[in-house]
């Protein structure tokens, strides 16, 4: 895989580079931005924000709840021993197990969704530069049809342009 990218010292210059790539005809999805921290206050950071994670976590919680309800009731009915003058199927104590498994289901579903949608784990991609961890912001394009066009678009003051 080939790529052309540039490293920028701050969010403003990275934003200008992203705008330049868009003006050169690249769609937002074709532009890669990588940073060592979340850059909430820049427009280029707002891509791919929407997620189904909240709904999936809720579904995970519901599965946990239903599993716990089934498990507690099934085991109490399987050996119907009266304990502490409680009914055979005692929902008050069962609710504790149901609560814990609801929360566990929600947490596990959220984490699995995070890993799947963030593409983790993965082998280290080609488009990456260790300088990102020193505060630089990478803006680039994977497999560009015309590398010269990308380089022109990425050329803003303070940029270091690289090819892989």
């Amino acid at each position, binding site marked *: 895989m080939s790529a052309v990218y540039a490293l920028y*010292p*701050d*969010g403003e210059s990275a934003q200008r580079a992203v705008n330049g790539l868009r003006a050169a005809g690249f769609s937002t999805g074709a532009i890669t*931005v990588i*940073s*060592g*921290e*979340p*850059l*909430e*206050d820049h427009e280029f*950071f707002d*891509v*791919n*924000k929407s*997620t189904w*994670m*909240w709904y999936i976590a809720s579904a995970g*919680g519901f599965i946990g709840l239903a599993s716990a309800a089934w*498990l*507690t009731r099934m*085991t*109490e009915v*399987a*050996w119907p*021993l009266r*304990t*502490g003058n*409680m009914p055979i199927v005692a929902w008050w*104590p*069962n609710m*504790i*197990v149901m*609560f*814990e*498994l609801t*929360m*566990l289901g*929600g*947490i*596990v579903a*959220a*984490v699995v*969704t*995070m890993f799947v949608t*963030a*593409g*983790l*784990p*993965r*082998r*280290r*991609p080609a*488009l*990456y530069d*260790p300088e*990102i*961890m*020193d*505060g630089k912001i990478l803006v680039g394009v994977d497999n560009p049809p015309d590398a010269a066009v990308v380089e022109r678009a990425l050329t803003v003051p303070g940029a270091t342009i690289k090819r892989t």
Partner: protein
Amino acid sequence: MSEASARKLGDDLLRPLLRTSWRFYALVAFLGSIVLTGLCTWAYQVYNGFGITGINNPIFWAFYITNFVFWIGISHAGTLISAILRLVNAGWRRPVTRCAEVITVFALMIGALFPIIHLGRPWLFFWLIPYPSNRQIWPNFRSPLVWDFFAINTYLTGSVLFLVLPMIPDFALVRDKATGVRQKVYAALALGWQGTPKQWHRLESAMSIMAIAIIPVAVSVHTIVSFDFSMAPVPMWHSTMFGPYFVAGAIFSGIAGLIVAMAALRKFLHLEEYLHPVHFQNLGKLLLLMSLLWSYFVFAERLTIWYGNESSEVAVLNVTQKGSFAPLYWTMVVCNFVVPFFIMSIKRLRTIAGCVIASFCVLIGMWLERFLIVVPSLGHKYLPYAWGTYRPRPVEIIITMSTFAAMTLLYTLFSKFVPIISIWEMKAGEHPSPALFPAATREHALGETHA
């Protein structure tokens, strides 16, 4: 964040990982030897049976269950506080959260070990796990001990994930800074993290969901630990307020544990630029609040029992306040109320040293509180001819001490292999979004600028 600031932040916080002094090995060897002694003592206890402990009829629960409740309480320092601060977007949380979350994970592990140590035959611990035996008999889900299994495991799973997820970007940073085998190990741990906007958004969404989920789980854990006591018809246990009383005590002791850990990290890892006095002052205020809340619960509980004048409960009340347990009881009151109240309510005394002194007192006081809940009640149940007393034996004392060494050892090793302050969160705090931080307070600033 400027490149120079980012580099300095990385260098400062990665220094403990990349450089090792002889003091680290000496400390690990010292703590390791105590932990090893504890393990050997446990093996000795397993071999000889419970006869070598002070546990007897009617006091079947003593040091081990005291330690269980104490360590589960300490675990409330981390994930709960971190989750609350994360949800309210408190800027000063950034250097504190990971220090706190680690305490939760290790304290839960140590706490969960005690019911197993308390088993005469610890190799049968798996009987607690909900699976059908060969006669298709399941554990009884109406037992509080089985609720413990679910609560502790849910909290432990959630806390581990809550700790590990934000570590992934920091592992990527170490991967890019380290060399040789270390670089390979951190590359594997970083899971191929790049830092695209999508990855950051997913990470933050997952952290938000987990922060919301983990708060009620944390509250439920210590409520369920309190149910181990309050579901039993034992004098001074069978109380409706035990749930909130235990939760308040847990958060109280947890904050104290966090302050002590942060002070040690600040001193030994030279993190003065990141862990500021304001962090200790803020936690000190929380400690004061929890001290008052804990005192309120103790007063409400004891007044009700004294006023009700039910003979078996008054017997326990008297033995703790005027009888053989009185020295421990009044030490507990001094440690949990008098000392923290006076130190934390006077601004001039709310220094780092003051916070640490108050926190040490609270840790001692809260351990005594757990002991005074467990032992006097069991020793003074409804029938006076069945009353008993308890003296801890060396095995129990050694095992208890070794768990404190184990906690310190695990914390030391963790801070050696993982940045103890979240580097990416510190960087993110350098340029907070105006929408998220409309007013820049001094506390925000201290949490966010340090270079």
